[in-house]
């Protein structure tokens, strides 16, 4: 789960990390009022709150939002009114949002901080070594996007302990790498320890400060902040779960999440229902190799009941992009007959208007096939994944 910048900053500030004065605004007048509270004379930075990086380099889909990106500098309060008017209610597209973009429903208004230099800092999980890694990059000339792709070896990586604090030697390593002046040392230590402790305390999977600023006084200030949390650990953090922004997800995604399914949408025409991420990926690969795109996939995972399955299938059936449905279930934990019952119950409720091909394998597969055959629904049964994909493509073409 992700949260917005202003929420992340609030959490980090509780760990001693300095953030610029700021406040959240849902309307232009609110933005103007907040600006007055954060700084007397400005300037101010207006930041569109969507859960994505590269907002400054992004663009708005609506004409009314003007040509600038999602992060704007304002020198007067009158301009704040104008700029927030433009951004609020508009859709911001960045390299990380995909072409559909995300709706801006709130703006974070901050007092502009004058800094001498900036750097990138983050903590992420190194999967191969099963360790926490601190990432620091000097981003004077090149932005981190380019550096991550072109010169990843220039980024400083330090393995952090799961317990305890960052060692003085590690702090020195970062000091040297960033060529910071001695007066920054204790601020840097607080900054890194703050990130580290927040990461552990909140079961984060990623924290990123892009960028952090170094002030003339040597103080370090987080000019931006992103935190991603481990969905599987949210049961330990009710306060974080409350921050979930439903606007960030589509309605169908939310419905699927209610049943503990995962659901993703793409821009093709086939809806896939599967019981594992691997099989979803393989089905999409196979479809693409035959020049057919995937509209969405629903992963129903394992150990579910018939009613939940039916609700899941309805999510796919009501996606207007879907011109054909592929159900590919390899039952281990999940028993195929439950899926068959779910298909029939969903079809009887919302109707079956597009071709549906089913492929079952594993636990109770024969029972499942029998259930479908007895139903008299126009369901096509296949034996292998490739056969299922071929039969579905043929059926979709025929129904055109």
């Amino acid at each position, binding site marked *: 789960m992700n949260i917005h910048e202003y929420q992340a900053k609030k959490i980090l500030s509780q760990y001693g990390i300095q953030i610029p004065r700021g406040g959240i605004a849902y309307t232009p007048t609110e933005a103007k009022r907040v600006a007055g509270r954060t700084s007397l004379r400005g300037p101010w930075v207006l930041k569109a709150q969507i*859960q994505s*990086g590269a907002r400054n380099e992004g663009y708005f889909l609506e004409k009314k939002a003007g040509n600038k990106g999602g992060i704007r500098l304002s020198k007067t309060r009158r301009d704040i009114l104008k700029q927030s008017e433009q951004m609020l209610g508009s859709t911001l597209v960045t390299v*990380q949002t*995909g072409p559909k973009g995300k709706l801006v429903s709130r703006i974070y208004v901050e007092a502009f901080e004058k800094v001498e230099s900036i750097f990138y800092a*983050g903590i*992420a*999980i*190194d*999967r*191969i070594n*099963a*360790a926490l*890694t601190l*990432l620091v990059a000097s981003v004077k000339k090149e932005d*981190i996007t380019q550096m*991550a*792709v072109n010169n*990843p*070896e220039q980024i400083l*990586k330090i393995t952090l302990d*799961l317990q305890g604090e960052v060692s003085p030697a590690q702090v020195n390593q970062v000091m040297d790498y960033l060529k910071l002046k001695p007066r920054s040392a204790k601020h840097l230590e607080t900054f890194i320890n703050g990130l580290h402790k927040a990461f552990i305390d909140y*079961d984060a*999977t*990623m924290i*990123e400060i*892009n960028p952090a600023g170094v002030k003339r006084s040597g103080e370090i200030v987080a000019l931006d902040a*992103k935190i*991603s949390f*481990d969905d*599987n*650990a949210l049961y*330990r953090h009710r306060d974080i779960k409350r921050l979930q922004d439903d606007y960030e997800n589509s309605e169908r995604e939310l419905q699927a999440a209610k049943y503990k399914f995962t659901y993703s949408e*793409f*821009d093709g025409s086939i809806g896939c229902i599967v019981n*594992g*991420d*691997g*099989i979803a*990926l*393989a089905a*999409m*690969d*196979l*479809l*693409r*190799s035959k020049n057919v*795109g*995937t509209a969405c996939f629903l992963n129903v995972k*394992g*150990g579910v009941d018939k009613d939940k399955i039916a609700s899941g299938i309805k999510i796919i059936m009501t996606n207007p992009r879907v011109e054909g449905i592929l159900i590919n279930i*390899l*039952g*281990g*934990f999940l028993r195929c007959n439950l899926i068959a019952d779910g298909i029939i119950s969903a079809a009887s409720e919302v109707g079956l208007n597009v071709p549906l091909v089913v492929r079952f*394998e*594993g*636990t109770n597969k024969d029972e499942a096939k029998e259930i479908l055959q007895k139903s008299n629904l126009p369901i096509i049964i296949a034996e*292998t*994944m*490739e056969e299922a994909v071929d039969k579905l493509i043929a059926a979709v073409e025929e129904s055109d």
Partner: protein
Amino acid sequence: MSILINRDTKVICQGITGTQATFHVRRSLDYGTQVVAGVTPGKGGETHLGLPVFNTVKEAKKATGANASVMYVPAPYVKSAIKEAIDAKLDLTVCIADGVPIKDMLEIKEMLRHSKTKLIGPNTPGIITPGQARMGIFPENIHQAGNIGIVSRSSTLTYEAVLETNRAGMGQSTVIGLGDDMLIGIDFIDAIERFNKDDETKAIVMIGQSGGTFEEAAARYYKEQSIKKPMIAFVAGNAIPFGHKMGYAGDIITNGYVSVQDKKDALSDAGVIVVDKINDIHKELQKLS
């Protein structure tokens, strides 16, 4: 021969009195697996599925001489269950649960580093040596004893790979689902190393997927160790057009964004036979004989 488990493996089931555990342990017993005891804290002294139930893994091991465990405990309890298996010095523990918090896994991996216990999972269908032993949730009816070792990160694609070996008329020596969580116990390298030493395994099928760099590491290992046994690999996730993501940290850790094509290229370069479609595996297997 086989790897990690066989007919002599003595298995404890952790969390044996749960519904899923009951369903699957019964099937494992019917399959011939030597499940010798169960563990459910507070239910020690009872009998379940005809097996003695103990309060702790240590007690169960002492009473039965078990050397492995399979656990069907829910995610929040996985950390303490694995700790018990490690403390009891079992050779192997298999964790089926999905949804284990990553921080718990970081701590578990730290414990494993200092122990002799090998972990398979979490979020795995488990491990099966056809005709001998089954630990986990594999649909045992699709397996046939044979000479192909299968190791997979994806649960469901493991079954697909099994079916491919059957289509080739070959069967499996041992099948391992590594689990497709962010952090897992043993990885490809562990499995490849063991399959390579196993006389009965003539070839290896490896199923990877997008995310992480486990496949690159496997490719490097295969090449550096000059492994002679043929290996066929499929990597899922080529068609993912756009992943919504936050930030860059993930890409930095892996030294730049790693695509499925990168993984396939790394494997190809290492001398692994890479297929674009999972249903082509049987054709490549047939070419080997």
